[in-house]
């Protein structure tokens, strides 16, 4: 008898808990699951916020609903859109956050990202993108090749071998790099061209502000210097070389070794890259089936990549940014707190010694 009473008590508690209507319990039909948020610069105070909400098939005449609002705070904007969209806006399914260039240059990105990072309903895999003109236009446009705009945007920023030049910055990466004294943040730079979207470069951030744009090729080298093992294909163009003009390397494997002299007062870094790859296309006068010729072209490629890396490092040193995080090799041996000033000091005075060793695995199946 006692047991039955206890059981009944447990059951009734269980069911009454299900019936409580404290707060707002909501079913999926009443929710608008935002998939992308675009933020455009209006003025010092205001942001123009655009959200896109993919619609279930057959329920709505449009595949993606897009709402825009001018607001000073993110959450306030979402509430305002909720009253317009007749459903409750929630961010559980957020995939992409877009900023326009002006917004990124204004230095407001960190505040916004911190807000998203704090929200535990948002996953860490949300990708960040800087857009050339207006984020709103990217979200409102029609892409005839890709019906579902959100899926298209999402796929564009999924890591694949052919776009591994991109840093694929997620909210977590941004916070991690931005708040650490070692790294400077990189975010892909997107442009809307006619009816499609294209990553045309990578933006670099310093002190919470976007400061410059580098090319995809440069970004690829940065990824190689960060120690990425599989690189995206590289096109190498030789200048001032009579024998070779151009070649294309695929299936690149990269092995990075960096050693520092552990001295912040006169910092020196030895960087050695061992790269292996397959030449799939070649324009020039050599006969690549001969092994001596192969050796020679390997040397040429070494020279070319070394020069490209050295140029890049010089460029980064001049603009005083360190997206690779070279100062980590000094922090590892530094006792005490590592600060932004120390990174700057290392960045300004460091001497690089770059050493590239390229090896051709094969040149395809034709003789």
């Amino acid at each position, binding site marked *: 008898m006692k047991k039955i009473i206890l059981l009944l008590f*447990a059951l009734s*508690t*269980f069911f009454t*808990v*299900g019936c*409580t209507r*404290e*707060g*707002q*319990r*909501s079913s999926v039909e009443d929710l608008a699951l935002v998939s992308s948020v675009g933020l455009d610069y209006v003025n010092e105070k205001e942001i123009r916020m655009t959200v896109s909400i993919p619609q279930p098939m057959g329920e709505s005449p449009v595949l993606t609903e897009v709402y825009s609002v001018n607001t000073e705070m993110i959450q306030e904007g979402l509430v305002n859109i909720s009253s317009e969209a007749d459903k409750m806006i929630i961010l*559980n399914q957020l995939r992409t956050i877009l900023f326009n260039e002006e917004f990124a240059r204004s230095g407001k990105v960190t505040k916004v990202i911190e807000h998203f990072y704090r929200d*535990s*309903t948002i*996953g*860490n*895999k949300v990708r960040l993108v800087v857009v050339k003109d207006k984020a709103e236009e990217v979200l409102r446009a029609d892409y005839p090749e890709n019906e579902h705009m959100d899926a298209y945007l999402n796929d564009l920023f999924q890591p694949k071998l052919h776009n591994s030049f991109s840093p694929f910055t997620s909210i*977590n990466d941004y*916070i*991690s*790099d931005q*708040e*650490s004294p*070692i790294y400077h943040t990189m975010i892909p730079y997107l442009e809307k061209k006619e009816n499609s979207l294209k990553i045309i470069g990578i933006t670099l951030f310093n002190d919470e502000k976007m400061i410059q744009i580098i090319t995809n090729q440069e970004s690829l080298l940065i990824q190689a210097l960060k120690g990425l093992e599989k690189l995206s294909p590289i096109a190498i163009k030789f200048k001032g070389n009579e024998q070779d003009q151009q070649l294309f390397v695929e299936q690149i494997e990269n092995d990075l070794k960096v050693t520092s002299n552990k001295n912040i007062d006169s910092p020196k870094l030895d960087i050695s890259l061992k790269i292996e790859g397959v030449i799939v296309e070649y324009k020039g006068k050599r006969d690549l089936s001969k092994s001596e010729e192969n050796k020679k072209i390997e040397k040429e490629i070494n020279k070319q990549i070394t020069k490209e890396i050295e140029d890049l490092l010089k460029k980064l040193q001049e603009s005083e940014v360190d997206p690779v995080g070279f100062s*980590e*090799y000094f922090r*590892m*041996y*530094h*006792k*005490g*707190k590592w600060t932004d000033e120390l990174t700057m000091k290392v960045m300004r005075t460091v001497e690089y010694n770059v050493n590239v060793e390229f090896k051709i695995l094969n040149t395809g199946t034709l003789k």
Partner: protein
Amino acid sequence: MDKDKFKVLNRYHVVFLVQNVMVGTSILSLPNRLSSMGYSQWWMPLLFGVIANIVLIPMIWLALKYRDDHLFAIHEKLLGKWLGKSINIFLVAYFVVIIAAVCASYIQLIQVVALVDRTITGPLIILLLMIIYIVNGGIKSVARFCIMAFFLTLGTVFILKWGFVEGEISHMLPIFNFNAQEFYTATKNGLMAVGGFELISFYFPYIIDQRKALKHASLGIWLCVLLTFLFTFVSVMFFSEWQLKHLIYPVLNLFKEVELSFLERIDVLGITLWVFLILSTTAAYLWAAKRGLDSILSTAKSAHLYMIVIAVYLVVQIPFMQEFQKLLFERIFYVMYVMFVWPILLCIIHVMKPKRTRG
């Protein structure tokens, strides 16, 4: 069936009772608690393991002197009836607050992550009912539940893979980069991660092979320390120092890194799976608290169990005094450190006592 038998815990029960009671919620926030030491914190769990193992020795030594008594009875024997009983009353109150603190912190976490728009009353009642159910079967039932919880949640170690792959091993260096103040703060806040093994003084009389209890309990401690170490290590690899300092539950963010093709938002799944660890921790404490109440009132009644649970419920749900409650939950863990050294004091009293009677 086993309820009537006195000695019920075999060696596996001891290992997992020690191990699983220790885990609790502390792993979830440990990297944050140790963050005053920056990246150098990664080896701290190993140090805690050593401390725990050293502190364990006097506990077992004392228990071996009083093989059939738990700590409540030892108190009364060593310190006299009145002093012993008052300390026992304090201990029971301490257990109640600790159970309340663990339940409240977990339920609040669940509310933030999984049940955003609900109140905590329902989940709390269900949680407490589950604990009662486990404790009702006696200490063996708690031990069995610990074993089950260990194997059910062991899978969460797998989620560390993503953090490990994306993290940077260079964060491990330099190893000793902190000053005395930072070390003190980290130890003060972090040592509670190994708390829980001290309950062995309460279930020691129920162990079958008491001579080998030290060995089995040490094994349990190091099993737990290993897990704690893995979580701390990967957190240090994955996060920047700023994140370690500012994220309240860094391990929750490690869960968020997981990418599986068939499942998204594994953090919600992981955090709800954690309920097994919470249940095993609180069940052991509740069992000890019930024993305490039995010994204070000198009768063993199952009603005591419900009295304690109601007290826990009230502590968690007191609506006014939120500030006090927060402070209480934060400070109560320092009593745990007293519990660590307490047996040493008792050992000294034990050694002194016969001399006094002889003299």
